[in-house]
C-alpha cells in the first residue's frame, strides 16, 4: 500500500522541487545550468501530473518513468525499500508538424520509444503486402515504406509513408517511426488517435527533444535550438535555429573562448615557468581583449533580434477617426481584415492582422479612431484603443494628408505622451501621413511640420500601397535591426546563452579596468578565466586542463605532441629513410650493373681465351694428328 501511494507522490515531489537545484549564480560548473531550464522548456510536462482528470491520466504516470525509467539503481541504493520496478520507457507519439494556420500538403506523426515499431505495426499496413498477413512488421531502418493506416475496426484512415529510424540512429536514440500523412488536421488527428489506441502515449511538447537530450543525442546548445525549431514562429526563426544546430553560434563562441584560453596560457605560463619565458606583450593582450569584447557585444546585439524572432512585435495603429487606419491595415496585410467605409468611427473594436517584416512576426492592431464621442459602443472602442496603444511595442499614429495636422491630432499626441510618461514606457511612435495620393506633393511640407515629436515619419497611401515598404524599413530601424543586412545572420541567442554572454562581457570589462589600473597580471587571469568559463557554459566545456595542455604545447617547457603530430613526424622520418634507402639501392644497383658489366667483360674475355685455348688445342691436336698421320 505504502509503495503504491509513494510512486506518484515521489514523482510529483521530484518534478516540482527540482528547480530548487538552480544554482545561485552561474559559475564554473557548467552542468548545473541546464537543470532549471528544463522546467520552462517543458512546462506542460511538469504540470501533467496534476491533471488526473485528463483523459490521458494513466499515460501520465507512464511518462514520468521517462526521467527515472532506467534508474534501477534507485532500488539498489535504498535497499531497505522494495521499489516497484519502473516500467520501460514508454512509447510516445505526437504530430510534429505545426498545427493551426493553413494546412500543409504533408503532416508528420512521430512515434518514439521501445515499442514504436510494434505500435506502428498494429496500425500500419504496407502497400504491397496482402491485407490478411499477420506477421509483425519488421522494418528496415531508414527505408521508406508506403502503406495505409487502419483504425482498430480495420477502416483505412489515411495513405501514409512510414519512415522507420531504429535506435540508436534516430533523433531520440530510441526506435523512431515517422508517419507522413496528408497535411490536414483531421487526417493527422485520426492517425495520431489510431497510434494512441494502439498503445502509444501522447507526447508532451518538447518530449522528443527531452528524450534526445536525456539519451545523450545532443549537447545543450543543440537541445535548446531544437526546442526553438519546434516553436519557431516564422521562417527566419527556423533558419536561425537550423544554423545554430549546425554550429554557427557554437563556432563564434568557441573562437572567442579559444582566444581567452590562449591569453590565459600566455599569462599562466609566465607564472609557473618564469625563467624560460620572454616578457609578456601587454599591448597585444589589450588589443586581443578589445577585439574579443567586440565579438561578444555583437553577439549580444543579436540577442535582441532573437527575442523578436521568438515573441514578435505588436504594433498599434492609432489616429483620429477616418484617417485610413483600417485601410492601412488592409493594404499592409494584403487582406480585407478590417471593414472600411467612408463613415468616421467604423472600427469599433480592435482588429488584428498578422504580417512578417524582415522575418519578424508582427501583429498589427487596428483601433477605433480616438475622439470624444457619446456613442456607448464607440466609447468602449476608444478606451480599448488607448489600452492597446499602451501595450504595443510600437505605436503608429496616423494622420490624413488631406486634413493636415489638426488640433485633434495634437490632443491625441498629448494624450499618448502623457500616458507614456505616467507608465514610464518608451514605446516608439511612428507618424504615418496617409492618403498622400489625394494631395499634391507640394502641400505635404505643411503637414510635416510636427514630425519632430516622432521617432520616424513615413508618407503612405493605403489605396496605392505607396510607402508601405518605407514603413517596414522604419520599423526595422527602430527595433535596431537595420545594422544587419538581410541574410547575414546565421544564428540567434537565447536567454541562457545571453546570460553567459553578458557575464563574458562584464568579465572582459573588469579585465580592461584591471589593466588600466596596472593591477598585477595574476589578477587578469581571474577575469579571463571567468570569461572563458562563461563561454564554456554555452558550449559545455571545461577549461582547467586545456590551459595546462596549451602551456605545455606552446612553450619551450616541454611539449606533448599529439598523436597526429607524432604520426606526421613518423611519416616524415620514414619518407626520409625511404629516400635514403632508395638512393642507397640505386647506388647499389649502379654498382651491381658496373660489376655485372665488368663480370661480363671478364667472362667474355675468359670465353675468348677459352675458345682460343680450345682452338689452339684443337689445332695442336690436329697438328699432332697430322704429325701422326704423316708418321
Amino acid at each position, binding site marked *: 500500500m505504502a509503495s503504491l501511494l*509513494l510512486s506518484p507522490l515521489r514523482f510529483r515531489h521530484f518534478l516540482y*522541487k527540482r528547480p530548487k537545484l538552480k544554482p545561485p549564480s552561474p559559475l*564554473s*560548473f557548467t*552542468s548545473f545550468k541546464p*537543470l532549471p531550464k528544463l522546467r520552462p522548456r517543458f512546462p506542460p510536462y511538469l504540470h501533467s501530473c496534476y491533471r488526473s482528470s485528463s483523459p490521458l491520466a494513466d499515460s501520465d504516470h507512464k511518462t514520468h518513468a521517462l526521467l527515472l525509467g532506467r534508474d534501477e539503481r534507485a532500488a539498489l*541504493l535504498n535497499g531497505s525499500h522494495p521499489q516497484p520496478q519502473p516500467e520501460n520507457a514508454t512509447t510516445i507519439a505526437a504530430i510534429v508538424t505545426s498545427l493551426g494556420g493553413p494546412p500543409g500538403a504533408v503532416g508528420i506523426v512521430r512515434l518514439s520509444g521501445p515499442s514504436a515499431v510494434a505500435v506502428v505495426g498494429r496500425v500500419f499496413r504496407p502497400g504491397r503486402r496482402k491485407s490478411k498477413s499477420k506477421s509483425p512488421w519488421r522494418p528496415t531502418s531508414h527505408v521508406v515504406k508506403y502503406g495505409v493506416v487502419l483504425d482498430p475496426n480495420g477502416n483505412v484512415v489515411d495513405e501514409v509513408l512510414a519512415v522507420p529510424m531504429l535506435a540508436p540512429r534516430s533523433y531520440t536514440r530510441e526506435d523512431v517511426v515517422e508517419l507522413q500523412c496528408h497535411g490536414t488536421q483531421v487526417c493527422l488527428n485520426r492517425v495520431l488517435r489510431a497510434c494512441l489506441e494502439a498503445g502509444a502515449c501522447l507526447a508532451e511538447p518538447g518530449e522528443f527533444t527531452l528524450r534526445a537530450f536525456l539519451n545523450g543525442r545532443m549537447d545543450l546548445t543543440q537541445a535548446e535550438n531544437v526546442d526553438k525549431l519546434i516553436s519557431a514562429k516564422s521562417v527566419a526563426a527556423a533558419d536561425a535555429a537550423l544554423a545554430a544546430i549546425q554550429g554557427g553560434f557554437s563556432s563564434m563562441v568557441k573562437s572567442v573562448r579559444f582566444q581567452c584560453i590562449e591569453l590565459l596560457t600566455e599569462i599562466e605560463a609566465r607564472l609557473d*615557468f618564469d625563467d624560460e619565458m620572454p616578457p609578456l606583450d601587454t599591448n597585444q593582450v589589450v588589443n586581443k581583449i578589445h577585439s574579443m569584447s567586440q565579438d561578444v557585444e555583437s553577439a549580444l546585439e543579436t540577442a535582441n533580434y532573437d527575442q523578436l524572432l521568438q515573441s514578435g512585435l505588436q504594433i498599434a495603429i492609432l489616429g483620429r477617426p477616418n484617417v485610413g487606419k483600417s485601410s492601412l491595415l488592409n493594404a499592409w496585410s494584403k487582406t480585407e481584415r478590417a471593414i472600411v467605409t467612408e463613415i468616421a468611427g467604423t472600427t469599433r473594436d480592435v482588429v488584428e492582422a498578422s504580417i512578417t517584416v524582415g522575418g519578424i512576426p508582427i501583429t498589427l492592431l487596428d483601433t477605433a479612431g480616438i475622439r470624444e464621442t457619446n456613442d456607448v459602443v464607440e466609447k468602449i472602442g476608444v478606451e480599448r484603443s488607448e489600452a492597446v496603444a499602451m501595450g504595443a511595442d510600437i505605436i503608429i499614429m496616423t494622420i490624413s494628408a488631406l486634413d493636415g495636422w489638426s488640433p485633434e491630432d495634437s490632443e491625441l499626441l498629448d494624450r499618448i505622451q502623457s500616458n507614456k510618461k505616467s507608465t514610464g514606457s518608451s514605446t516608439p511612435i511612428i507618424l504615418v501621413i496617409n492618403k498622400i495620393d489625394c494631395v499634391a506633393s507640394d502641400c505635404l511640407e505643411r503637414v510635416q511640420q510636427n514630425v519632430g515629436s516622432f521617432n520616424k515619419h513615413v508618407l503612405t497611401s493605403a489605396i496605392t500601397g505607396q510607402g508601405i515598404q518605407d514603413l517596414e524599413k522604419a520599423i526595422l530601424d527602430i527595433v535596431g535591426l537595420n545594422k544587419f543586412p538581410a541574410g547575414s545572420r546565421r544564428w540567434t541567442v537565447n536567454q541562457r546563452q545571453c546570460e553567459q554572454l553578458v557575464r563574458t562581457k562584464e568579465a572582459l570589462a573588469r579585465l580592461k579596468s584591471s589593466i588600466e589600473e596596472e593591477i598585477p597580471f595574476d589578477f587578469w587571469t581571474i577575469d579571463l578565466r571567468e570569461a572563458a568559463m562563461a563561454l564554456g557554459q554555452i558550449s559545455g566545456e571545461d577549461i582547467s*586542463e586545456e590551459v595546462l595542455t596549451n602551456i605545455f604545447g606552446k612553450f619551450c617547457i616541454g611539449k606533448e605532441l599529439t598523436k597526429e603530430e607524432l604520426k606526421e613526424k613518423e611519416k616524415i622520418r620514414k619518407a626520409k629513410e625511404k629516400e635514403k634507402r632508395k638512393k642507397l639501392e640505386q647506388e647499389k644497383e649502379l654498382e651491381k650493373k658496373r660489376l655485372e658489366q665488368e663480370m661480363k667483360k671478364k667472362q667474355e674475355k675468359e670465353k675468348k681465351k677459352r675458345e682460343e685455348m680450345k682452338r689452339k688445342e684443337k689445332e695442336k691436336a690436329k697438328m699432332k694428328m697430322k704429325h701422326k698421320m704423316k708418321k
Partner: protein
Amino acid sequence: MATPAVTLHLSRLARHLPFSSPFFKPVLYPCARILPNLPFRRRAAFNSSRFTVSASVSPASSNAENCGLDDEIYDVIVVGGGHAGCEAALASARLGARTLLLTLNIDRIAWQPCNPAVGGPAKSQLVHEVDALGGEIGKIADRCYLQKRILNTSRGPAVRALRAQTDKREYATQMKEIVESTPNLSIREAMVTDILLGKNDDIEGVQTFFGMNFYAPSVILTTGTFMSGKIWVGRTSMPAGRAGESASLGLTENLQRLGFETDRLKTGTPARVDRRTVDYSGLEPQHGDEEVGWFSFDLDFHVEREQMCCYLTRTTKSTHQLIRENLHETPTYGGWVEAKGPRYCPSIEDKIVRFMDKESHQIFLEPEGRNVPELYVQGFSTGLPERLQLPLLRTLPGLENCSMLRPAYAVEYDYLPAHQCSRSLMTKKIGGLFFSGQINGTTGYEEAAAQGIVSGINAARHADGKPLIVLERESSYIGTLIDDLVTKDLREPYRMLTSRSEHRLLLRSDNADSRLTPLGREIGLIDDRRWKLYQDKQARILEEKKRLKSVRISGGDLSANVTSLSCQPVKDFSTLESLLKKPHVEYKVLDKHGYGNEMLSRVEKECVEIDIKYEGFIVRQQNQLQQMAHQQHKRLPEDLDYNAITTLSLEAREKLSKVRPQTIGQASRVGGVNPADITALLIILEANRKIAYQEKRLQLLNSVKTDTDGHISAASLKETN
C-alpha cells in the same frame, strides 16, 4: 556519527574569511563505522593517547627501550624515508601513534636526489601549507638554505613564490636528526616486500625481505622511485632506485596480486660538475634576495645565513649540433624507453628537437652545498650515454674545462595510479593502507611532503579509530593536489602548478597559516607555543586593519606622495585604508611618512596590505567559491552503481565506477565525464533524496501513530536531521 564532525568544526574563522564559509572546513569522513560509544579523546597536542593496538599489547611509552616481540607491533608503519615518509612518520608520531619508519638506507633519509632546492611557483604554497599544518619541510628548508629568492614579485600576491637552494647534505642530516629524536618514532633498515592482510582485507602489517613481520593497523607506502626502479645512462641500465642505491623488488608484484593497478613512469636528473673547474667570469650571477623570505610561520626558524650565488649560462650552437648528431643515442629518440617523462622538465634533447627555432636555452648552475664541490646543472638533463655527456657539458660557456662528477641518468619506476586512493590517501581496496609521494605519480619534494603529512595524520587517526581528514580542493593547494591525483587519469609525473588551482587568489602563501593552522591545532600538530604565535599574529593584523580604517588624513606629505604614485587625487579625510587601495601605493609609503605601525613585522604588513588592496577581488572569489562549493560538495553515495545508470554515457559509467568520486564536484573533474552526465547524476541524486525523504516521513508517521510516547519520536527526528 555526527559528533566527531561537530567537534572539529570549531570556530575557525580566520582573518581571511570574513564570511562564515563552511567549505573551508575540513570534511571528515568516517573511515569505518565508528561505534557511537567510542570516546573522541584528546584535543591538546602531544598528549599520549591510547591507540587501539598498542593499548592491547603494551602501554604506549615514548621511550623505545622495550625489547622483544612487542617492538614489532606498532600503530603506524611508514615504508620509505624520503620527503613523504619523513613528513608522514613525524606527523603520525607527534599525534601519539607508535610509529615505525622502514627505510632501505638510514643514511639517505630525506635525501634530495635531484634539484637541491625547495619551493618555487605553487610548490612554495605547498611548503607553507605543510608548515601551517605542523609539518617539517619548511623549517628544514629555512634552516639549510644556500640562497633564497622570491619569484613573481610583481605578478600578484597569489603567485608570489619563495624558492630556496638548499644544502642537500645538511638538509638530510637535519631531517635525520629530527626523525631520530622524535618520541614514538622508531627507525629500521628494511626492504618491504609484501603487505600482510587481516580477515576483512584490512591491513595488518608488512613483511620484509629477510622475513621479518611488522604489525600495525595503518601502513603508509612511500616508495618513491624505488619500486622496481631501473636507472638508465644511454643504452645501459641497471636495477636501482637512485644512482648507487638498490631498487626495492617484489612489492609491485604483491600489490598487483592484491588487485592494484600499477604503471610505469620515468624521470631524470642532470649531471653534476665540479664547481672548481667552472669559469664564472663570463656567466651571469644570480644573487639571493637581500630581504629573506621564510617558508615556516614559526619565527624560531627565521635565522639568516650567508647566501651563495647561482649562475646562468646558455646552450650554444655546438650544444645543439652535438645533440642533433647523436639523437639516435638517446632513449626517447632511439626508442628503447617507453615510460613517459614529465612534460614540464623535458630533457635538453627534447627542448632542442621540439623547439627547433629557439637558438639557445637557459641553463642554471646551482650549488649543492657549502662544503661539497658539486654543481647542479639545471635544465640540462639528458639521456645521452656517459661518453657524450662531458663533451656536451663542455659546449656550455663557462664549462669549457669542467670535470663531471656524476653523470646524468634517467630512472624508471612503478607507481600506482592514485585513483585507487580516496582523498584521505587511504586506498579504497584495503582499509589502513595509505600511499604517498611518487608512488602516487607525483614529482617533487614538496608534493611528496604534502601527501606525507596528510597520510601521516590519517594513518594515525585510522589507528586510533577516528574519522579521516580530507582537505577539500578549494581549501588548499594540498587539497587541490590530492583531488587531482585521485580524480584525474594522470599518465605523467604530476607537478604542482599555480594554474592547477582554480581559486588561487584565496590560496596564497601569506594566508596559508590562517587557512590551515587552526586545523593543525585541532588535529593536534600545533603545540601551545606555536598556537600562541599564530593567534598573536592574527590579532595584530586585525588590529592594524581596524586602525587603518579609522585613521584619516587630509593633505600633507603622505597625500601628495600617494597622488604622485597613483595619479589619483586624495580627498580630504581619507582613511589610510582608502589610500592603500590606490594603485602602486604600498604599506611602505605609510611607513615612510610615519603612518605605519612599527609593532608589525614585514610579513604582517604584507598581509595587511594584501587584505586591503585586493579586497574586492578576494571577496568576489570568495562569493564564487561559496556558490560553487554549495553545488560541488554534494556527496555521492559510496555504493552508487554507476553501471546501472543508463543515462550516463558509457565512458562516464566506466570512469566513475573506476574512480568512485566522493562528491559531485569531483565527479565533474573525472576525465570523460561530460556535463550531461553530471546532470543525470544530479537528477538521480535528487530523486533518491526525495524517495528517502518520503520514506522517512512515512516511517515517522507510522512511528508517531504506534508510539504513545511523543518525546521519543521527537528525539529521533532531531537525530536524523
